[in-house]
């Protein structure tokens, strides 16, 4: 019996090995075929989609893959771009940061994608950045992030801190007269950088250090009892208190549950979140959350014809009328339309020509205005503050009167306050130091 088992296993392994070898050979052949066919400036244009379809980030990123497929399908119905069809190339980096770089290299070298839409977490963006700069690719990054970066090969369609965090803090200061601040976040690069900027900003507004409490928790933290109790205690100093939350992912659910259970309502201590959108609320009972805030550049509840049409198309494409739309989806919508317009303007998909054509391109966003790509490779956006409603949607309680231009380098951080990025000639520099008049600093 035992010997039989062993021989079976061996045979099994042998078979597997053969299969793997065959797959590798086949893969090589296909890849070779594609790369040679694509060298010419004709035939279909390849668009890379670099979003995790498995692992912890799959919840958020799968939707972005779907929205890209929808946008590409729609553009193809209109006849593609430059008379050429668009072909999506979907890869799965599996929430594995080094794998992001590997997959990005594949998209640029063997698939020769004209543009790549992808990444969610900052750590995945940092992982692919050297690849895009080395191979002169073009990445559209759709998620709000901590700023402090300005690469020639990346178009940042998500919000920089001054397009999300700082207006939210301003709103609470003005409307709710908040004087005491809890900065609570998940322990990684985005919350830490954002909180560093916010702390400096609050201090510049005259908030004392003793009125700021900073707290970090690990990913997926679920036992919030004493942190919520601490917040409650911090909020009982006789000054209006608010929580600025950069807590990411599903740790938010137990956090809000604990707030509700300990009787902290939005009217007592409001929480303003930068990573909680419609998608995250879909898995929660939102009744105890009513009145807590979120700051984004788009909400599904925005009442414009463009947004209604977008939601309708999305529901038809995904064949589920209950699916929500969210801010990073709008960012991809804007980014994709910008790329189409730039390619049409340049008359080619050549990266250098498209990058030059992109700056200054202006396309409609879904909240009833136009977003423009500035020289710093960030786009102009309106900032909306929404309050959570009991139906899982947001009620917009404040919006900036005009569009906000992104500050890629924070003026509230000592090391970056003199830096600007501008990829237009003659400057063509991502980190120009206005004090020394030289290009060079934290990033290329």
């Amino acid at each position: 019996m035992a010997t039989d088992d062993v021989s079976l296993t061996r045979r099994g392994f042998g078979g597997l090995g053969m299969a793997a070898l065959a797959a590798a050979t086949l893969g090589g052949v296909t890849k070779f075929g594609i790369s040679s066919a694509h060298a010419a400036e004709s035939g279909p244009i390849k668009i890379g989609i670099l979003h995790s379809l498995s692992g912890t980030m799959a919840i958020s990123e799968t939707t972005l893959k779907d929205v890209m497929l929808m946008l590409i399908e729609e553009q193809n119905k209109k006849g593609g771009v430059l008379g050429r069809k668009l072909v999506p190339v979907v890869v799965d980096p599996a929430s594995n940061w080094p794998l992001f770089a590997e997959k990005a290299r594949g998209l640029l070298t063997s698939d020769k994608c004209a543009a790549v839409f992808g990444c969610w977490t900052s750590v995945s963006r940092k992982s692919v950045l050297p690849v895009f700069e080395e191979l002169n690719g073009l990445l559209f990054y759709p998620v709000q992030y901590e700023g402090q970066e300005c690469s020639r090969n990346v178009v940042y369609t998500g919000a920089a801190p001054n397009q999300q965090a700082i207006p939210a803090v301003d709103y609470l200061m003005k409307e709710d007269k908040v004087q005491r601040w809890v900065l609570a976040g998940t322990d990684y690069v985005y919350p830490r950088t954002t909180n560093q900027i916010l702390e400096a900003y609050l201090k510049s507004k005259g908030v004392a250090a003793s009125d700021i409490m900073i707290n970090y928790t690990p990913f997926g933290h679920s036992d919030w009892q004493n942190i919520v109790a601490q917040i409650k205690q911090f909020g009982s100093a006789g000054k209006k208190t608010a929580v600025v939350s950069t807590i990411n992912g599903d740790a938010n659910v137990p956090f809000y549950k604990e707030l509700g259970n300990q009787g902290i309502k939005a009217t007592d201590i409001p929480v303003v979140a930068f990573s909680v959108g419609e998608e995250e609320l879909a898995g929660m009972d939102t009744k105890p959350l009513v009145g807590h805030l979120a700051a984004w550049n788009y909400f599904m509840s925005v009442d414009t014809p463009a947004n209604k049409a977008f939601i309708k198309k999305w529901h038809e494409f995904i064949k589920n009328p209950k699916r929500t739309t969210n801010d990073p989806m709008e960012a991809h919508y804007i980014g994709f339309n910008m790329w189409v317009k730039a390619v049409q303007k340049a008359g080619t998909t050549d990266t250098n020509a498209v990058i030059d054509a992109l700056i200054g391109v202006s396309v409609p966003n879904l909240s009833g205005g136009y977003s423009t790509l500035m020289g710093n490779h960030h786009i102009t956006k309106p900032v909306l503050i929404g309050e959570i409603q009991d139906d899982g949607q947001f009620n917009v309680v404040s919006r900036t009167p005009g569009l906000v231009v992104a500050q890629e380098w924070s003026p509230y951080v000592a090391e970056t306050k003199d830096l600007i990025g501008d990829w237009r000639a003659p400057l063509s520099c991502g980190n120009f130091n206005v004090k020394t008049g030289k290009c060079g600093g934290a990033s290329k």
Partner: protein
Amino acid sequence: MRLVLFLIGLVLLPAFARAGDPSNAYSAFASGDYDAMAAAVTELAAAADPHAGAVIAALQAGRLYATEDGALLIRGDDGNYTDLLSGKPVAADEDTVKKIRMNNAVRRAVEAAEGGLQLFAADPATRRAAAETLFKSHDTAALSALTRARAKERDPSVAEAMAEAEAAAIVMSPDAPEAAKLHAVAVIRARGDLEASALLASIPSPTPAVAAAAHNGIVAIQRVLQLWDVAESVFYGLSLGSVLLLAAIGLAITFGVMGVINMAHGEMVMIGAYVTFVVQEIIRAHAPGLFGASVVIAVPLAFIVAGAIGIAIERGLIRFLYGRPLETLLATWGLSLVLQQAVRSIFGPTNRDVGTPSWMSGALPLGGLTITLNRLTIILFALAVFAALMALLRYTSLGLKMRAVTQNRAMAAAMGIRTPWIDALTFGLGSGVAGMAGVALSQIDNVSPNLGQGYIIDSFMVVVFGGVGNLWGTALGALLLGIVNKFLEPFAGAVLGKIAVLVLVILFIQRRPRGLFPLKGRAAEA
């Protein structure tokens, strides 16, 4: 006489129209201007407008709508609209009317106004809640209503709450005499909780005497609260410990008693949580009245489902791998991935919303403590599961056979015990207990395919720390680790706290490799 009254009326009328014309206030609701809405709510409540109660109730329930020309409608349960002022039905549909939404400022005004209106309600609990709301809002406009309500109040506990709310309004009002303020400070100080301390810290422009009294009050309250803080940390620690215990106790059987390194243990917990989700979905669809009992119904079902899967795993996989720990580890690890992916395929990758029954929501104030009911329920549940398991192992025939097989398999077989079946049942028992833990965890954590992964390391840590093979060790180990973690967290932060606990456990295991309560005797050597 009549003429005089008429004349007075004529003189006063325009003044009234300017100051408190309700139609002005009503038009604010349709304007979308939140500050005007908040002012309108306060104004309507203060003027005791006949429709104020209806407006406030409709706002809170999200039933207040406005037409394009500014008329206010209330939407009924059947989806039909009635005019707020006339009470007549109005033909309208979703496209022609707009729902009136609130922001936090309006919500605060609504809560305060509701408090003022309900001070005279028939139910003492409602009156008490109204007084509590007014204490929090410390709205000086409610002062006269509070004084009137307190004079009428018969129920001593409600009267006390009203006196506190009155004191809160007095310290906040700029023109109250100093003696009244000093008395009010004393009343608030006697209340002695966090909110009282917050209120004393926010008295506007106090006289020196009031400021001194308030400062002393804060110091006294904080001193008492510091003692309560220790008790609170112990409660939080017990609560975390009970979660660890629930997650680990199934493993204490499969790993501790049977010696199977079961990496799929977390997935049994996850399956229990999904059973709760399915039970709730069925109840929501067919018998919404039973929702409060959904968690109770889910406990035995989760035990059966997870237990059955456990038996299937033992029969189908693990029994072939006894005595080969490395292969068991790899096989069960692979199995855990298979189970996760299966659940992901069936239920989707997103988190599922498992509701909390109302009897488990909220908190119980106990002195200076806030005992959250869901955590309290879980502590009691964990202890009950532990007691039941101990009883089962000790007093039932199955338990006797289980102990016999794990202590000396050959001898047990010689006594006529069918050891393979006992193995299967023991593994099923451990898995079933993990399933029950999943029901409890669905109340405090996210129900997602990854749920179990977060608990597997902690579970092994607890079992090894407590002493492999000893259920008492597991229980004490879990509670101890929970409490140590919660006392470390305020100083070290959540991230460092967890690291510190891990380091402590490793050091402890270095000193005592067999854990807190090592098994003694021949069984331990086997």
